Each structure stands twice: as structure tokens, then as C-alpha cells.
């Protein structure tokens, strides 16, 4: 019996390792949760550049876009794509503002379920409340410098869109290094945050939805 148990552990360990190269399952999840919550509590704002890569596996194509990201407590996010196209999205509590090449749109995140879920993911990642989101089942892994939080959607809507979301958190300051969304088709989108500035002075006006 012990032998079978050991073999099972080895197989599971191998599968996990194969899934996320260089990462091992986190043993003290409770400690991580506390540390993550404590650290993000001290973060009032985040200002960062970002690079987004959408990989279309069957087409062997990658679409790379870049821009600026701002976050301010509570519940305010501004994402401004600048290359190779212009696109602005502001999340301010329950409201979403989008400006694309042609039109400005204001929606209430509450009125659009998918928008609300995307809104929640983004805000949760920044506020450190990801682990409390009931829309996902969570597993946590670690390597030397980062934690990998795997979020598997368990609710309708998201479940049909995404296999899972991986959030990579920096061990140094518990800030988010990247958010990776894996689709059921095998395609994925990674948003990498670079040149992060924590607790920089950010005006509320950046998040105003008129």
C-alpha cells in the first residue's frame, strides 16, 4: 500500500513538474496567503509598462502589443495600449470605459457578466484577493524567485473560454510579474508587467469615467 502511495506521489510530482517547469507545489499555502494579503495591503498603487503576447498556436503566430498600466486602490485600473494600436480601458469600481479606434463605450461591469469576471480577475490580481475569488479553483507553486498561482475557472462563461489563468507573483514584493490566460484551444495570452513602480503618486483623474 505504501509503495503504491509512493508511486502515486512520484507520478503526481512528475506531472506537476512537467506542467510548470522549474516550479514545485507550495507546501505552506496558508503562510503564502497571509504574506500575500499583508504585502498587497501595503500597495496602494502600481504603475507599470506592460507587454502583451497573444500566441495562436495552430497559426504559429504571435501578436505583440505594448502599453501602460495603472492601478489604484480600491478597484481602479487603467490599461492603455499604445503599440501597435491604440486602445484604452478603464475599470473604476463597477464601471468600465473603453475607447477603441472608433468609439468610446461605457458599460456597467455588473450588466455584462464577462466584463465583471475580467474586471474581477484584474483587480483581484493587483489587490491580492485572487485567492478568495470563488469563480476559480486555485493551486500554488513556487520556484526560487516567484510564486505561480494557477486559477482554474469553475463557473459557466469563463469555463467555456479559459482552461486556466496563471498569475506569477514576485517573491520580493508580492507584486504581479505576469498574467497568463490559456484558452481551451491551446492559444494563450500573456501580459508581462515591466518597470513596475509600487506606491507611486497616481492621480484619481486617470481613472475618471465621464
Amino acid at each position: 500500500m505504501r509503495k503504491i502511495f509512493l508511486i502515486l506521489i512520484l507520478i503526481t510530482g512528475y506531472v506537476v513538474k512537467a506542467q510548470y517547469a522549474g516550479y514545485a507545489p507550495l507546501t505552506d499555502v496558508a503562510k503564502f496567503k497571509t504574506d500575500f494579503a499583508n504585502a498587497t495591503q501595503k500597495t496602494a498603487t502600481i504603475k507599470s509598462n506592460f507587454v502583451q503576447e497573444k500566441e495562436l498556436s495552430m497559426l504559429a503566430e504571435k501578436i505583440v502589443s505594448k502599453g501602460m498600466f495603472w492601478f489604484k486602490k480600491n478597484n481602479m485600473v487603467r490599461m492603455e495600449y499604445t503599440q501597435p494600436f491604440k486602445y484604452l480601458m478603464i475599470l473604476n469600481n463597477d464601471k468600465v470605459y473603453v475607447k477603441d479606434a472608433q468609439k468610446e463605450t461605457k458599460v456597467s461591469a455588473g450588466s455584462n457578466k464577462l466584463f465583471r469576471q475580467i474586471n474581477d480577475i484584474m483587480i483581484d490580481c493587483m489587490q491580492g484577493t485572487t485567492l478568495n475569488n470563488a469563480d476559480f479553483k486555485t493551486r500554488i507553486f513556487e520556484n526560487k524567485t516567484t510564486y505561480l498561482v494557477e486559477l482554474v475557472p469553475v463557473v459557466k462563461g469563463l469555463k467555456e473560454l479559459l482552461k486556466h489563468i496563471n498569475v506569477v507573483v514576485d517573491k520580493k514584493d508580492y507584486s504581479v510579474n505576469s498574467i497568463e490566460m490559456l484558452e481551451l484551444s491551446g492559444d494563450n495570452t500573456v501580459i508581462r508587467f515591466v518597470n513596475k513602480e509600487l506606491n507611486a503618486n497616481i492621480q484619481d483623474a486617470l481613472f475618471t469615467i465621464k
Partner: protein
Amino acid sequence: MQIFRMRYLLLNSCLILLGSCTTLYKNLQPANGNVSDLQQFRPQFSVALYNTTVDVLDNHLSGLLLIKKMPDSSIRMVFSNEMGFKFFDFEFASTGEFKVYSIIKKMNKKAVIKTLRKDFELILMNQLDAATFKIRKDENFKYYTFPQQKGYYHYITNLAGDHLVRMERASNRKQVVEVVMENYINHIPDTIGVNHNKFHFTIGLKRIER
């Protein structure tokens, strides 16, 4: 008396309208030309990325449309929003077959897929059957007409045949969709506009330099 006059006026305007519908393509005169004349306008999509806006009734969508020619000569079209969420992934085989790899639930309706398929077929110019085609003209334009299972695809050029003015999907009498492709760079149009006449449905594509 007034009611009678009103009815008469209404009847007259209906007849005028009907008359204009029936004569839209009826008064065209035979002209000289070949299917091969259109080859110069056929987009040579190796790979192209377009900033895309779609307006359907009261809904507005924006995102990126990637068009890529695959090694088997089929054309793949993937439309996703700016953040990477995929709306649809279509394949147009060189044999004329069509495949839906994925489409979001909200768009997964037979009529929507059929409309998009026909609009893009018109743009790809991959349904140009030389055996059934007709060429006609009026005072200003040449009409290259290709009968389809239902309706017609019209490619309309200037009389010299060196400028593609517009493309149309039409029934026997009426224009259903009008498409323009402009500013070809290396045989790929920089701007594409699709406008449906039966209901409010427009697609705008502007090529992005990567």
C-alpha cells in the same frame, strides 16, 4: 378624396422603388473582359493584422483580425479583442470549403456565421468561377458577376478595369452588401469596409504595421 390621393401617392412611390430595384443590374450592357482581369485586385494575404471594428444593430465590437495563408493554401481568420479574448477562428480552404474552429457563444448562430462567411469570401475573391461568370457595363463601371447558389457576387471596376471601385453581394434585384478595399500595399488592401444594406451591420478593417 384625400385618402384616395394618399393611397395613390403611396402606390406610386412603391412602384418607383420596385422599378429602381429591378433595374439596378437589368440595364447593364454586355462588355469585354476576363476573370483574369480581377487577379490584380485579389488580396495576397501571406499574413496581415487589422484593427477591426464591428457594429451590429446596437452592439459594438472592436479588436484585431489576423488573416494568414497557411501552408496548405487555406486562409485562417482569427478575430480577438485587444486583450486577447478570441471571438472567432475561421478557415477558408482553397477548395471553397469553410470550417469554424471556434466562435463565442453569443456569435454562434447559423445566420451570423453564414453572413460572415459570405462577406469574407467576397473579400478573399476565392469564389470566382470562370465557367458561369458574366461581364457587363454601364456608363461608368464594369460589372464582373459571379452567380452563387443564392444570389450574386459583383466586382465593380472602372471602365478601364484598373481600379476596383467596390464589391457587392446581391439578390436578383437588390444589393445586399457593399464592400470596398483600398490602398493596396504589396497586394494587400490597407483599408476594408463592409456595409450591409438590409440591417445595420458594418465591419471596418485598418491594417496595422507590426
